[in-house]
């Protein structure tokens, strides 16, 4: 008898749940929320995921794939978007930019996905951008990047260059007393544009405060370069107060290891990087970067309940050994921002989402409160400076007081 009533209770509650979600979906009939023929049915909505799972970028993009999946699963567990469960079609960009373009065409034209979470390098974003604009779809892009872009069809959940760089340089000027800078980067668009902004800020803004401020060296090395001994000797000769670096990928590991082995450690030199997150430190080894600094908007060690819950969920889903870096967190924001936008617009239509994105808030994001800008598709966010610890985590030594405005077309910096 008892068993029976238990069963009855279960059936009743299941029915109730079904009815509520049905009701929820019925409030938004498919014909109304989807007027442009996207892959939306009465109980599902299909989205695309487009990252490199193979090739050289797989190392970096894996974290983003995992974070987006986690967010989508959490949203589905809460009842989905407008009462519809999210289905994912994942494609592999294979670290090859034309492949990215081709796969994005497939996702948009053939699969008619409601939006795409994807891309990592600027090169892959530039490759798919014309397709998203022509076919009118929406890309949620997670990486911090060089700015100088603002498309109706992209939401940039990472920081654009000025948010990351200017705060970092000002902090070094104030806190470390830095006056001479050595700029070092991998040789492609993001580091070059970033260093252009950095040089401009040093020579225009910081120099106005103290005429001693100057750039003593600026160098770029090919992607994948692993021999930095000559560069290290040049740094030793010029003795800059700060090495400001944007070295990426496999080069990163060689760079830090060779610094340590050449005696360039944090007790004698300062370094501020805009490219090294917890993900990279896994490969570099904490002992090789201990004491240097990184300028990001997110570190895994942020001490808030929201972040702890996120890190815990991430580790439960993807393994105890996994770490969360800046881009991984930004990728996690994508599906949530999309859900909030769709609910605000009451529609999956791309034009309505593009318009409704302005001012979308996510107040319990792991990094803290963020908001999409009113006039561009970037996020207001707080910049932070983290100090590398030996265990591969960061001690956050500074957080900007205010949210920093995204400014993809900075005046005077171009």
């Amino acid at each position: 008898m008892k068993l029976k009533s238990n069963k009855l209770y279960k059936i009743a509650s299941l029915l109730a749940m079904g009815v509520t979600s049905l009701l929820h979906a019925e409030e938004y009939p498919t014909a109304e929320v989807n007027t442009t023929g996207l892959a939306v049915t009465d109980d599902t909505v299909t989205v695309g995921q487009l990252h490199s799972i193979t090739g050289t970028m797989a190392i970096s993009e894996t974290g983003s794939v995992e974070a987006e999946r986690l967010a989508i699963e959490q949203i589905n567990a809460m009842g989905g978007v407008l009462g519809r469960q999210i289905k994912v079609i994942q494609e592999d960009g294979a670290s090859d930019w034309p492949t990215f373009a081709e796969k994005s065409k497939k996702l948009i034209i053939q699969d008619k996905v409601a939006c795409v979470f994807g891309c990592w390098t600027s090169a892959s974003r530039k490759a798919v951008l014309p397709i998203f604009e022509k076919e009118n779809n929406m890309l949620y892009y997670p990486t911090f990047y060089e700015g100088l872009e603002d498309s109706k069809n992209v939401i940039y959940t990472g920081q654009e260059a000025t948010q990351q760089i200017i705060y970092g340089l000002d902090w070094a000027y104030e806190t470390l007393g830095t006056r001479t800078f050595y700029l070092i980067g991998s040789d492609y668009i993001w580091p070059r544009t970033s260093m252009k902004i950095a040089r401009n800020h040093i020579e225009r803004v910081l120099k106005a405060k103290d005429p001693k401020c100057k750039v003593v060296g600026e160098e770029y090395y090919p992607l994948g370069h692993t021999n930095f001994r000559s560069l290290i000797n040049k740094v030793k000769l010029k003795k800059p107060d700060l090495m400001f670096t944007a070295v990426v990928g496999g080069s990163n590991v060689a760079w830090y290891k060779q610094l340590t082995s050449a005696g360039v450690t944090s007790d004698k030199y300062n370094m501020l990087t805009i490219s090294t997150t917890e993900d990279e430190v896994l490969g570099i080894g904490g002992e090789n970067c201990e004491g240097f600094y990184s300028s990001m908007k997110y570190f895994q060690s942020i001490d808030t309940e929201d972040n702890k819950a996120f890190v815990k969920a991430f580790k439960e889903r993807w393994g105890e050994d996994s770490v969360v870096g800046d881009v991984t967190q930004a990728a996690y924001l994508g599906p949530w921002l999309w859900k909030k936008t769709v609910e605000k617009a009451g529609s999956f239509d791309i034009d309505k989402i593009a318009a409704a994105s302005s001012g979308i808030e996510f107040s319990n994001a792991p990094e803290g409160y963020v908001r999409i800008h009113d006039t561009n598709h970037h996020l207001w966010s707080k910049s932070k400076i983290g100090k590398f610890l030996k265990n591969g985590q960061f001690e956050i030594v500074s957080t900007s007081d205010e949210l920093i405005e995204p400014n993809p077309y900075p005046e005077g910096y171009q």
Partner: protein
Amino acid sequence: MFAEYSFEEIKSILIMQSFGGLSLLCIYVLMGLGLYVVFGQMGVINMAHAEFLVIGSYTMCLASKFVVDHMPTFINHYLWIAIPLSFGVAFLVGWIVEWLLISRLYKRPLDTLLATWGLSLIMQQCFRTFIGAREMSATLPDWLMGSWAPTDTIDIPINGLVILATTIILTTGLVIFTRKTRWGLRMRSTSQNRDMSQALGINTKVTDRFTFALACGISGIGGAFLTTVASTSPTAGTAYIVDAFLVLVLGGLGSLFGLVISAGFLALLSSILEFFMTGSMAKVWLYLIIFIVLAKFTKGLFSSKVRT
């Protein structure tokens, strides 16, 4: 450029830069050594060569991970086991590869090129599937990190010294092995004339298999030491293979002496260029100069004396 610096500073930088060049020479030799054995002794161009370097690196990384996880007190000494292990694993894989693939293709050199290239792609995907796409690096013992500072302004990397010693030991070891031992004699006679050696009672099949596996094993050791300067990822080999071939081709394809000299030439050139130019421009000039040298000496700096 130098006016504002003291003589002492410039002297220190010059010494460190020279040592940097020497380290680079060693790395080039380590990269090219296995390729040289396979090509110089067997006439096989092994496009999967770099993946054997990567096998060595991964063995080292996994060994260090195991030690860190299970017996952290052993961390200062695990190198002595990890390096022979890198050799062993690469040797074993080389043995199997020769048996399954290369041995069937000795009479078809062009097919070997294609087959080993395919093999390199298969191996890359295996690394990615079974070990993971993320970059790995070995935890080094404390004594291998940091630098030795003979004066206040000079820092000599300790891992550079270790790599230097390894390169000298491996190279001289290889010379002694091929010149002074029975196995070496069999290797050389097989490479000079396979049919005649067979007629004289040398088991050329086993000799070939051993030579190939030995070359892979040497690459494994090279790879193990490369983890002290850079990281390992499934596709790390694609960066090594260019340098390895460059050194070998420039050195004349078949001579160990040529290999060392061309490694020295490349190291010297890139150290000088990188010091006076920015990184990317130095690379452009480096390849341009190599191009000119190869156009002038079409058979490399030291062409092989071995009849083929």
